[in-house]
């Protein structure tokens, strides 16, 4: 699972460089998230703009990635594509995360 972590001032922006977080990828995603969130800013934003498909296993892995954070860390989401947004909306998990529409604007704000 290819996750790229970059720090923008107070944010750890983690970009998923793969198209699918599905049952075949869920465990590796969760493990890699543990690695890339073990240090750096406590405000973490998961950039899903390259991800076109998340199934319930992938959704569970994203939730698990949040639950494995320490108490002072927070996980937001950004750049949800159409089908990914649908999974979060149907399961009401869109009420659990702060979801940013535009990762580019978010980066600009973090840098500026």
């Amino acid at each position, binding site marked *: 699972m290819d996750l790229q972590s970059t720090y923008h001032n107070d944010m750890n922006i983690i970009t998923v460089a793969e198209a699918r977080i599905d049952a075949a990828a869920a465990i590796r995603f969760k493990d890699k998230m543990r690695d890339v969130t073990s240090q750096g800013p406590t405000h973490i934003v998961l950039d899903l703009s390259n991800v076109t498909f998340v199934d319930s296993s992938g959704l569970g892995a994203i939730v698990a990635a949040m639950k494995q954070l320490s108490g002072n860390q927070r996980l937001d989401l950004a750049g949800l594509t159409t089908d990914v947004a649908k999974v979060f909306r149907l*399961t009401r998990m869109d009420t*659990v995360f702060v979801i940013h529409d535009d990762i580019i604007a978010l980066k600009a704000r973090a840098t500026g």
Partner: protein
Amino acid sequence: MTISLPSKPVQQVDQRPGYPRGEQLKRDIAVTVDGTPTDFTLTARASELAVRDTLLTVRSRLLAEGVSDETSGSVELAMAEALNNIVEHAYATGESRDIMLKVSIKPDRLCFLLCDGGAPLPGLCLPQGKLPDPSGPRDDLPEGGFGWFLIRDLAERVAYERRDGMNHLTLEFLRAAP
């Protein structure tokens, strides 16, 4: 109607781009497709990667037949849940087995019949598919249990039958979004 699974599908090596390096080298997958563009049968090895290939194959066929992105997205998600249930529950005992998927693309609806020779659904009936509670503290948030909720929510019709030692799951979707 009796459906039997071929004992062993043809082994294929998939070299399409988009898979992480290494993954495609050790893949033990096989998805065979037989039929016409609008009525076809896929036979897949029951594995998570074969599920992925099956979904990609179905999605590209739906796209080619002019099915909307919205409907195709719903189909892909519901089918992912149904196929993963087979891999993770029906065939939980480990031995790699086959899943057969019959697809029928009609002018007004999309019909899918999934057949597997794994364990039956508990109580021989469809799970209720209640949505796990997303409220409450972070440590208590659900990490699973969404599958049947999504299948029931996304499909227009869901039917299950255990026949001749096999599971037959039918999912139907309307082509036009309601």
